[in-house]
C-alpha cells in the first residue's frame, strides 16, 4: 500500500513538504548530531517538561506540553559572565560566545513567535551581539502542539507560524507532516532522506483535518481588539490594587516568560581585588528593587504598580513600539504563578461588565 503511495513522487508535489514516520523520528534526531548539539523537551519530573540536550534521543517527549523555561535560555542564559577585567589590563572584549551550532527540536508556535519578538528587541536600538552570535547558530524544528486550558495563543495570533523555523512538524496518524522552512531545514532532511517520504493526497487530507481539529481546541478566547485602549482607560482600576495584594513579587512570571528580557548587571571581584567579572543575570520588574535608582528613589515602590507595569508593558507600550503585544499566550505565567494570578482572568475582568457599563452610561 505504502508503495503505491510512493509513486506520489511522480506527481508534481510541493517540494517543501515531506512525511516522516513516528518510528523514524528518534533516528532522525540522532542523525542530527552531525549538524550540532541536539536539544528537545524531556520530562524533568512528573508534569514538568524542560528543554535539555538529547544525549539519549529516547528521552525526548514528542508531545510535551509547554516547558518550564522557554527557549530563550539558550540565547540569553539565566546568568552569564560578560567579560573579565583587571586593574592592569582594563577589560578585554570577550571572544564571541559559544558559537557551537544547536538544534532545538519540538518548539511550539508560541515559542517561535517568542523568539521573533526577542529578535526584534535585541536587534533594536542596542544591538546585542551575544544574543545574535547564538541565534545565528540555532536551528529550530517546530512542533504543532495541542492546546490545554492555559494556552491562549489563538487570541494572540501566535498559534500558527509561517516562518521562524527550519522544519515544522504536525502530527498525522503514525507520522508527522514536515514543512521545510529554510534551505538549512532542507539540508537536514536531505542528509537523512531515506527517513522521509513525499506527501500523498491522503496525507494532505489528514493534515487539513488535523489543523481544523486543532483550531477548534482553543477554549480560551481573549478578546484583544482595542485591549490597549481599554487598559489605558482602566489605568486607575481597582483590579490593579487587588492584584497588588495578591502578588508575591516573586518574579516567577517574568522568569518563565518567553518574551521577558530584563536583566541586571553587576561586578563580582576576585579576592585579590585586582581582577573580576561582569555578570549579567535575568531580572524581573516585579522585584521591589527593579525601579530603584541612585538616592533610593523608587519609581514603582508599590507592588500594585509593578504588577500593573508588567501588564501594560506587554499589552500597551510594547504594542506602541513594536506593533504587537509581547505576550504570545503560552500560558507559562498562568501555570507558574504561585499566587494563582491568571492573565486571562485579569483581561476578562478589565474588559468586563464594568467597562460596558461605563460606556453605556
Amino acid at each position, binding site marked *: 500500500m505504502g508503495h503505491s503511495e510512493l509513486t506520489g513522487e511522480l506527481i508534481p508535489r510541493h517540494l517543501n513538504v515531506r512525511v516522516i514516520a513516528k518510528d523514524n523520528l528518534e533516528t532522525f534526531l540522532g542523525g542530527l548530531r552531525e549538524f550540532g548539539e541536539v536539544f528537545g523537551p524531556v520530562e524533568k519530573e512528573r508534569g514538568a517538561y524542560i528543554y535539555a540536550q538529547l544525549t539519549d534521543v529516547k528521552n525526548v517527549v514528542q508531545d510535551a506540553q509547554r516547558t*518550564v523555561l522557554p527557549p530563550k535560555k539558550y540565547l540569553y542564559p539565566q546568568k552569564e559572565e560578560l567579560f573579565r577585567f583587571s586593574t592592569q589590563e582594563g577589560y578585554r572584549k570577550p571572544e564571541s560566545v559559544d558559537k557551537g551550532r544547536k538544534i532545538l527540536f519540538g518548539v511550539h508556535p508560541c515559542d517561535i513567535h517568542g523568539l521573533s519578538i526577542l529578535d526584534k528587541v535585541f536587534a533594536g536600538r542596542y544591538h546585542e551581539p551575544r544574543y545574535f552570535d547564538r541565534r545565528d547558530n540555532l536551528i529550530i524544528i517546530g512542533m504543532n502542539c495541542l492546546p490545554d486550558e492555559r494556552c491562549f495563543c489563538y487570541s494572540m495570533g501566535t498559534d500558527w507560524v509561517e516562518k521562524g523555523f527550519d522544519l515544522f512538524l504536525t502530527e498525522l496518524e503514525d507520522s508527522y507532516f514536515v514543512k521545510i522552512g529554510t534551505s538549512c531545514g532542507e539540508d537536514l532532511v536531505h542528509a537523512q532522506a531515506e527517513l522521509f517520504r513525499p506527501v500523498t493526497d491522503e496525507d494532505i487530507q489528514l493534515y487539513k483535518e488535523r489543523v481544523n481539529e486543532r483550531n477548534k481546541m482553543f477554549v480560551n478566547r481573549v478578546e484583544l481588539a482595542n485591549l490597549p485602549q481599554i487598559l489605558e482607560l482602566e489605568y486607575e482600576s481597582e483590579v490593579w490594587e487587588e492584584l497588588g495584594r495578591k*502578588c*508575591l*513579587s516573586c*518574579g516567577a512570571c517574568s522568569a518563565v516568560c518567553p518574551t521577558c528580557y530584563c536583566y541586571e548587571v553587576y561586578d563580582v571581584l576576585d579576592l585579590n*581585588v585586582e581582577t573580576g567579572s561582569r555578570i549579567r543575570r535575568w531580572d524581573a520588574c516585579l522585584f521591589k528593587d527593579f525601579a530603584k535608582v541612585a538616592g533610593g528613589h523608587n519609581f514603582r515602590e508599590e507592588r500594585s504598580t509593578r504588577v500593573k507595569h508588567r501588564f501594560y508593558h506587554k499589552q500597551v507600550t510594547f504594542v506602541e513600539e513594536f506593533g504587537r503585544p509581547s505576550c504570545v499566550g503560552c500560558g507559562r505565567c498562568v501555570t507558574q504563578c504561585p499566587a494563582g494570578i491568571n492573565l486571562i482572568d485579569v483581561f476578562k475582568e478589565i474588559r468586563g461588565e464594568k467597562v460596558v457599563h461605563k460606556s453605556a452610561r
Partner: protein
Amino acid sequence: MSKPKIGIFGLTSCAGDQLAILNCEDELLDIVGAVDIKSFIMAQSELKAVQDQMEDSRFDLALVEGAVVTDEDEKMLKKIRDNTKLLIAIGTCAAWGGIPASRNDLEREELYQIVYGRREDLFGCHKPRPLRDFVQVDFSLLGCPIEKEEILRAFSSLLHEDVPVLPTFPVCFECKLNENLCIFKEKDDLCHGSVTLAGCGARCPSHGVPCRGCRGPVDEANIPSVYHLMKEKGYPVADVERALRTFTYNAEIPQ
C-alpha cells in the same frame, strides 16, 4: 595597603556558619592572603581566650554567628562591637534569632520542663534574640548555614570598600531558573519560597523539598497573601504561622 584585620566569632549557635567559612577550601588560601584573620577560635589550634584576643586587636571587620542567649553572649557581642569598624551578622541565628528562637512563644521554664524534665534554669538562658536587638549590625549574610558564594563576595566587596550586591528577591525566582515544578502550586506543599530571601539557588525545592525559609524573610514579604493561599489549600493558620516562624521568630509577621 595593610591587610584588613578580621575576627570571626560565635555566640550561641551550632557553629555551622564558621564551618561554612572553613569549607571554602579552595579559596581559603586566597582569603588568608587577602585579610589578616586575628581571631577565629574554631580554626585555631592554640586556644587563647577570645577576650584576650580582643585586647590585642582592633578589628576592621567582625563576623558574628549565633543568637544572643546568655548574659555572656551579650557582653561579648558588645565588646566585639566596641572593637570593630564593621560588624556583619553571619547566619540566620545572628540575623533573626534562627532555630534557637523558634519557640520564643513559650516561656523558658516551660521549655526546660519539656526538654529536661525540670523547670529550673540550668544555663542562664534568655529568649534567643538577633544581634541587632543589642548592637548596630552593618550587614547580614543569611542562611542556615551561609552560602560560600556569598561569603566570598562579601569578602571581596568589603576589601574594595563596597557592600556586596546580593539577591533581594524571593527563592521562587531561583526555583524557576532551575525549572522546578512548583510544589506549592502543584502539590500543595507548605513551601515558603515566595516569602524567603533567595541566594541559596532554591536548594530545597530543587530537591523536591519545600523551602522552610532558612534564609529569612524577603523585604516586603507578602505574608497576608501567603496566609490566604495556604488557607485555600486547607492549612490551619496556626500551622502556617509555626512554619513561618521556624527560622525567624523575631521577624514581624503581619496577619
